[in-house]
């Protein structure tokens, strides 16, 4: 039987939304407060959903310890307590939560093989959330 397992994690990071493709006025108009040159931060909530057959011997889709280890070492250690603008995945990219969501999916997808990576969902605040399910399947809700 196939089940979907979702695990929630937390990390805090700062960012500034600013694009080199726009003028200063355009940046202010488009990104509003998020364009503040000194940046600002969020407590992000990350949901990782994996799916697969429930293993008859363990009763699990995948070992939670393995999933936690992968997310801890590849995502939380990379992004927690960081300024996203200074990190490699955002070289030449605006660290919107859309881009962060896709970056997390693309980091996890090739290294996590214990189950199928179904979805990455990111809550920037209690009011905004973003989901990415791989190419051609992006959805946004707010």
């Amino acid at each position, binding site marked *: *039987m*196939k*089940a*979907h*397992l*979702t*695990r*929630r*994690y937390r990390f805090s990071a700062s960012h500034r939304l600013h694009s080199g493709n726009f003028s200063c006025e355009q940046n202010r108009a488009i990104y509003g407060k998020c364009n503040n040159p000194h940046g600002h931060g969020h407590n992000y909530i990350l949901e990782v959903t994996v799916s697969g057959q*429930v293993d008859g*011997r*363990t*009763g*699990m*889709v995948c*070992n*939670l*310890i393995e999933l936690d280890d992968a997310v801890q070492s590849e995502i939380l250690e990379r992004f927690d307590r960081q300024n996203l603008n200074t990190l490699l995945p955002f070289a030449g990219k605006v660290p919107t939560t859309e881009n962060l969501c896709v970056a997390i999916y693309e980091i996890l997808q090739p290294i996590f093989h214990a189950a199928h990576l179904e979805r990455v969902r990111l809550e920037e605040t209690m009011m905004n959330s973003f989901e990415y399910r791989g190419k051609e399947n992006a959805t946004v809700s707010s």
Partner: protein
Amino acid sequence: MVYLTRKAEFSASHYYHNPDFSPEQNRQIFGKCNNPQGHGHNYMLEVTVKGDIDPDSGFVVDLKQLKEIMHREVLDAMDHRFLNKEVPEFTTRIPTTENLAIAIWQRLEPKLDNAKLHRVRVYETADLFVDFYGER
């Protein structure tokens, strides 16, 4: 088609152990959850049914009936129980959140007549939940 979700909470204890594994393997695979004395959770159950709106009642499903079925089939059997010892499914299956979602689906699905079961979601904690859609 309209989807309707009803929540219920139950508290139960469990532990994870596979007699085919050695004690070392059990400890390694299941970690703290291998403690044979068990430990407990406040589970949150979400049952989602789908169907068309009945033009007379305006309902997808009679919520009172759904609530009764959830109580009879799931909560009476699992609330304040030691899952490994008191719920028949878990004498042969490990009471993981995955297997709990599947067992709850299997208990509810044949009892619902007017609406179709869409999803069973079981939260073991606020940070861990499993969805089962009846997929083989």
